[in-house]
């Protein structure tokens, strides 16, 4: 068995046993939600080479949609999650179709600006509860029968979805479609001259990534019972970039590790250092960009296999 497979099995065993081992389930659920978010973001940045600076929009849009569907429309959680993902996918389709008309740095600025548009809509619409957001969203009964009110039940639901997303992303990356995405990342003109409709591949990757980001947002609403403005704020987009960059852009496990570190940092520091959290996050950004652009997992992989070619993280 390959060491990576062993590692994943051990990690999964740890995750399954986490509630028994006394790990606080809400913390692990938060971590898993952000890990899904970062993996979805990594599908776009790491494997397609597109830097979206507005991914909070899809996370937050789905968080609000699911909250609204469960709280006001009394839908069951699984359908509400699908509703949130569908809304994120449609927003992703609209934004993606506009943003891929421009390259590189403009793509980042356009996604950021359109995400800010959504932020102001959430701030001003009645539907989203303005400054308060949606509070007191119940978790409901899965398929109408299984109550998610207990943290342990909810935990296994989130864990199952996380494993599914992780495997799905591996499957996508290793599929012929994923190979074409990587070809676009490495050399777009070459992919075009080989006859691929590059814009359609980019758009599909964007929509896949935004729907999975939506899943993360929907789950987050169910776990905590609220959707607020901070879910759609640009700083959330910054955080998911940081998680991916810190863990390792274009590695499978990097975003998960990055999400773990950032969530743990925030949980431990928020009440102790106040505004310095933002300084620390900024400093990690600077250190990552200056000193280890491959991220923790990327550097570790490079260290353990000297024969591996240093791979190109961004196009």
């Amino acid at each position, binding site marked *: 068995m390959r060491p990576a497979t062993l590692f994943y099995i051990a990690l999964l065993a740890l995750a399954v046993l986490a509630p028994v081992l006394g790990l606080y389930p809400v913390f692990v659920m938060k971590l898993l939600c952000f890990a899904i978010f970062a993996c979805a973001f990594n599908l776009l940045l790491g494997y397609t080479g597109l*830097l979206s*600076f507005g991914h909070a929009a899809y996370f937050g849009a789905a968080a609000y949609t699911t909250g609204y569907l469960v709280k006001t429309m009394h839908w069951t959680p699984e359908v509400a999650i699908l509703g949130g993902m569908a809304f994120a996918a449609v927003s992703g389709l609209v934004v993606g179709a*506009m*943003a891929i*008309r*421009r*390259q*590189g*740095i*403009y793509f*980042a*600025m*356009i996604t*950021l*600006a*359109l995400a*800010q*548009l959504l932020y*102001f*809509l959430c*701030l*001003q619409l009645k539907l989203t509860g303005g400054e308060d957001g949606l509070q007191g969203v119940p978790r409901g009964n899965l398929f109408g029968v299984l109550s998610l009110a207990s943290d342990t039940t909810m935990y296994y639901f989130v864990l199952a979805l996380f494993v599914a997303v992780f495997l799905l992303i591996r499957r996508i990356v290793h599929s012929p479609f994923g190979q074409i995405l990587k070809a676009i990342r490495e050399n777009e003109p070459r992919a075009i001259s080989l006859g691929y409709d590059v814009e359609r591949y980019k758009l599909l990757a964007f929509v896949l990534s935004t729907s999975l980001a939506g899943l993360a947002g929907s789950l987050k609403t169910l776990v905590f019972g609220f959707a607020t403005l901070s879910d759609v704020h*640009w700083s959330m987009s*910054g955080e998911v*970039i940081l998680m991916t*960059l810190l863990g390792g852009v274009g590695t499978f496990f990097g975003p998960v590790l990055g999400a773990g570190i950032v969530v743990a940092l925030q949980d431990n520091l928020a009440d102790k250092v*106040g*505004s*310095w*959290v*933002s*300084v*620390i*996050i*900024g*400093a*990690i*950004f*600077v250190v*990552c*960009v*200056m000193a280890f*652009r491959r991220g923790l997992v990327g550097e570790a992989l490079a260290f353990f296999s000297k024969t591996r070619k240093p791979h190109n993280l*961004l*196009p």
Partner: protein
Amino acid sequence: MNPFDIPIQALLGQLLIGLVNGSFYAMLSLGLAVIFGLLGIVNFAHGALYMMGAFGAWILMDRFGLNYWYALLLVPLMIGALGVVIERIFLKRLYKLDPLYGLLLTFGLALIAEGIFRDQYGVSGQSYNVPDALQGATDLGFMVLPNYRAWVVLASLSTCLGTWFVIERTRLGATLRAATENPQMVQAFGINVPVMVMLTYGAGAALAALAGVLAAPVIQVTPLMGSNIIIVVFAVVVIGGMGSILGSVLTGLALGLIEGLTRVIYPEASNIVVFVIMAIVLVLRPAGLFGKEH
């Protein structure tokens, strides 16, 4: 609300505020364009430099009792020097990499600056008084023009035109433009391109700080003002394209005016009108109004 029912005074007043905001957009997008042209970096820290400019003016007054006119001179110099330091320590090492790394690094720097100021001064705004010489208003007959706002528009327009003149019409500017096209060749002619690049970033930072000092008396000085404006300025840059200096100045002013107009006709949309225009421009003219793709 029917647009024809709006009192002309309110309309002109909002248009003037729009013009003032537009001058800030113009100055900031100009700085972004100049920095992007030579360094190939989209400076996310531009908003933070603008915020530090406004705080610089406030701190000079609050701590050292130095008035507005000192601030107008000293703050851009100090922030410009800070820009030079940032370029030497960080940006210099990123030129060979993908431009996205420059964006991520300056984003990190912006977070650091915002966090420090938020820790020191909180998120509630500080107010900065209009300097004595520019207090009061002039009656133009059809409207009352506050002197300070007129000064802001005048000062930022002259700064923009001055920058345009230096870049497009002087020998220094010609060298700068040549270095944008082909740095190796300019270097081969015996011009110290790295120093020129360093000073360009410093000048861009100084320009942002100058906008901040000009803004201090008309807005609440808060640590969040930088990130609030930089996203709008990004949209302005996407609309105008970073290829043309006059283009970015005109786009900035026009969008400020449109924002002012929206605030009269349909106030709820004034926050989002710039982003909506950006979306429309992307659909109709993907390269931007004055743009050439890099």
